[in-house]
């Protein structure tokens, strides 16, 4: 069952120097109970895409295209309808839990506020019962409900964020770099927790990260973004086994893990989104660039089963 269907999504930010196109005609699908890993370097538009799904972008952003979720098109939906969806059908976990939890509110208050936002006349006892259930799921002692965020460690804060996201059994969870500010061991703990919760709550998860290792371990499908475009999409196993897009190849080569013997990197720098290169934005760094690459952006083709790629190396 397709949970989320994004088609031809464009997001651009207005700026003094001109529009910044952060997401350009992106297509994505997330199935229920599946984790889609969205990977890319900083500034490639992956966070913008995640925020566009819940429509929590700043006012300077213009969104076009379609995001079909829970029987609605989130691009055209009105604010009251969106508000009903946020936190209930779809939740978001951010990178830094300390800046996302209110330092002046106890954990109890965070949960009460969230529950009352959706059910204004919710009974406090009932709300706390639900809170205890999700806190138990993320292994936070419920007697710490009356503590403030600063009294928890980094990993616990992120688990509280996850618990907040889970209160209404959402069908979609957008996790935007959920472990980037955490240590490796805690990172693995949190992602294992997310993985088990995903199965328990049957959610679809959009895992946004720059770490290919995490994608390999915790996602089923993946999409690689570069300069606002989705360069490649497909099942994680296939993409890691046989990366098609030269950028995906370069990215996989530059991963440093325990078995790395030699260092590889992609020459050059990620482009400036204000003045992206013409045609395929990767062509100035691409080892197999052709004259055609500078012309127009390559069409998205389907060279293998379940896989799409936007590159002239794979004509339709």
């Amino acid at each position: 069952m397709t949970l989320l269907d994004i088609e031809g999504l464009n997001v651009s930010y207005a700026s003094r120097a001109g529009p910044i196109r952060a997401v350009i005609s992106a297509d994505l699908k997330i199935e229920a109970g599946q984790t889609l890993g969205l990977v890319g370097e900083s500034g490639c538009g992956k966070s913008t895409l995640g925020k566009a799904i819940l429509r929590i972008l700043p006012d300077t952003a213009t969104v076009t295209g379609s995001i079909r979720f829970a029987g609605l098109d989130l691009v055209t939906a009105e604010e009251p309808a969106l508000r009903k969806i946020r936190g209930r059908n779809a939740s978001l976990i951010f990178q830094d839990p300390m800046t996302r939890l209110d330092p002046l509110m106890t954990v109890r208050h965070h949960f009460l506020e969230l529950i009352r936002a959706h059910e204004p006349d919710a009974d406090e006892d009932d709300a706390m019962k639900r809170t205890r259930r999700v806190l138990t799921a993320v292994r936070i002692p419920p007697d710490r409900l009356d503590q403030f965020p600063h009294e928890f460690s980094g990993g616990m804060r992120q688990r509280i964020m996850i618990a907040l996201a889970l209160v209404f059994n959402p069908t979609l969870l957008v996790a935007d770099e959920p472990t980037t500010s955490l240590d490796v061991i805690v990172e693995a703990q949190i992602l294992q927790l997310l993985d088990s919760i995903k199965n328990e709550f049957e959610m679809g998860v959009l895992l946004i990260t720059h770490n290919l290792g995490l994608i390999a371990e915790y996602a089923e499908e993946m999409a690689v973004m570069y300069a606002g475009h989705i360069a490649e999409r497909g099942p994680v196993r296939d993409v890691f086994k046989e990366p098609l897009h030269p950028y995906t190849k370069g990215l996989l080569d530059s991963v440093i893990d325990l078995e790395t013997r030699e260092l590889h990197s992609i020459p050059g720098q990620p482009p400036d989104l204000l003045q992206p290169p013409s045609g395929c934005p990767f062509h100035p760094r691409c080892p197999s660039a052709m004259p055609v690459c500078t012309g127009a952006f390559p069409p998205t083709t389907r060279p293998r089963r379940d896989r799409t790629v936007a590159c002239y190396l794979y004509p339709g």
Partner: protein
Amino acid sequence: MPDVLVRVRDLKVYYPLFRGFVQRLLGGGARFVRAVDGISFEVQRGEVFGLVGESGCGKSTAGRSLMGLTPIEEGEIVLEFPSASAKPQFIRPRELKMACVAWWAVSAAYLATATYYGVSGSALFPFGLVATVPGPYVDALGIVGSVQVLLGLALWLLRPWSRRPARLVAGIGAAIAFASLPWGLLLFGVEVGILVYLGTPDPSGLVRRQGLLLPATKFTLTKDGILEGIPRAEQQTWFERWFIGPRTVRTAGFSWVLKQLRGKVQIVYQDPHAALNPALTVGELLRHALQAHAPIAPGGTRASSRLEEVNAKALKLLDDVGLRPPDQFFAKQSTDMSGGQKQRVVIARALAPKPLLLVADEPVAMLDMSIRAKVLELLLDLKEKYGLTYVFITHDLATAKLVCDRIAIMYLGRLVEAGEARRIYADPKHPYTRALLQAIPIPDPSRRTKKELPKGEVPDAVFPPAGCRFHPRCPVALPTCGWEGRDFLDYLEERWIDPSNSDEEAALGPIEDWKSEDLGASRSVRKGDPEVIVARVQAALKEAPKPLAEAVDRVALELDRVVVSFRPPARLEPKEVEGRIVECLLY
């Protein structure tokens, strides 16, 4: 040439926590974050030494302490560099010049007067010469001056009892003494003034007093500051031995010595966006570093203060770190550059004073995956080119494996395992090292495995756990590892998350009623039946993890409290295990 560049012995770095007056009264004095709590290691010349650990383990603090950037609570760091040049450099700040001119004027007037009065003038001549030599011999002159005044006084007092010729001599002597008395007093005053002025323990004062500065080669950083050692006695010239002697300076905060140290040890910071002043161009950034650490020429001017020379050096640095064409980057504002380029500028700036040791504090953590390798390669290239030694600080064991020759793994201020990187990666010995290695994500979806991760997170460094600091999270802990009251409370709290244990929580909880002191935990039994509480505690302990349960000494009633006490931990010492140092009771 020394092979060991850095020797860290039992280093402790504590950061005081700010606590209000009332808090201190109530809470028993000052508290400290024990960022580094007793570590020892050595860094060999020309190697890449990795300090690896999670955030808060003290790796950055340990790295920074090598530069004298942190206070030291205990222990010492000795940095010994091959001597660059044995030639002493004259330091003549303007105050020193003025002091010298005044001094010479006074001495000359004194000599002239003494000569005019005859005998004793010529007798005093050598002392007058001494007066022109600024240095420890200044004190001798003061003594001579006072002795002379006293002698004159004595002669004048003895005058009536002397025979005539003697009386004549005594009279002349007395006259000289009286005539020179004002000079003597003036001299004395001037000298006292100068000594007071120079007598401050500030090493720059010392530089002023001696007027000479040798390129230091050995620095000892301790609680009191930096002890700076000049070349060993046998390496000194006779001039240095006689006129300077072995020099050791106590200092704190900024000083001349610290500056010398910073010219030899430099740091590359983690976040290039925060490390560069956005108001300056790249050229200005580099020029600042080059000028601040330029060698000092005779007369106090910097050897290369000429702008063209400095600019040429800056361009060369930019070229060396791969920012080409350098003149284009030279004029750029750092805000107009990407993260990778900024980090290259940070590296270039660190190289400006020609350091011998580079502390690289997570140099690639903030960079994009696709350019990390390039920056790492650059660092390794520069190591060869500039003959550098690295202390490479990272949380990423995979990166450390690629670049480090030897690594030290830190946990909560302690070194848990240290040795040759090759050996440690091939066969990690400490349970924490194993946990860290296991937690690294493997970028291969066909090899997904369920990971056995350690429980919980790094504890608070203000109250580190007893015994081995890793024991509350350790999967293979022993009963002697340092179990204590709070481990028991953590266990209860974890246990009570499970709703099936709610009756136990009702009987023993809430957790706030428990108090942990030293090795035990206790709770008042006024609210319930003491026997039931003890029985409940024992039941809970039966289901506890084995090492925790076995470490319990006894569960007993003391007055109106039930006390769970633990046996003291076994002594933990770093041991040599298969060619590396491990701090673990398993070995």
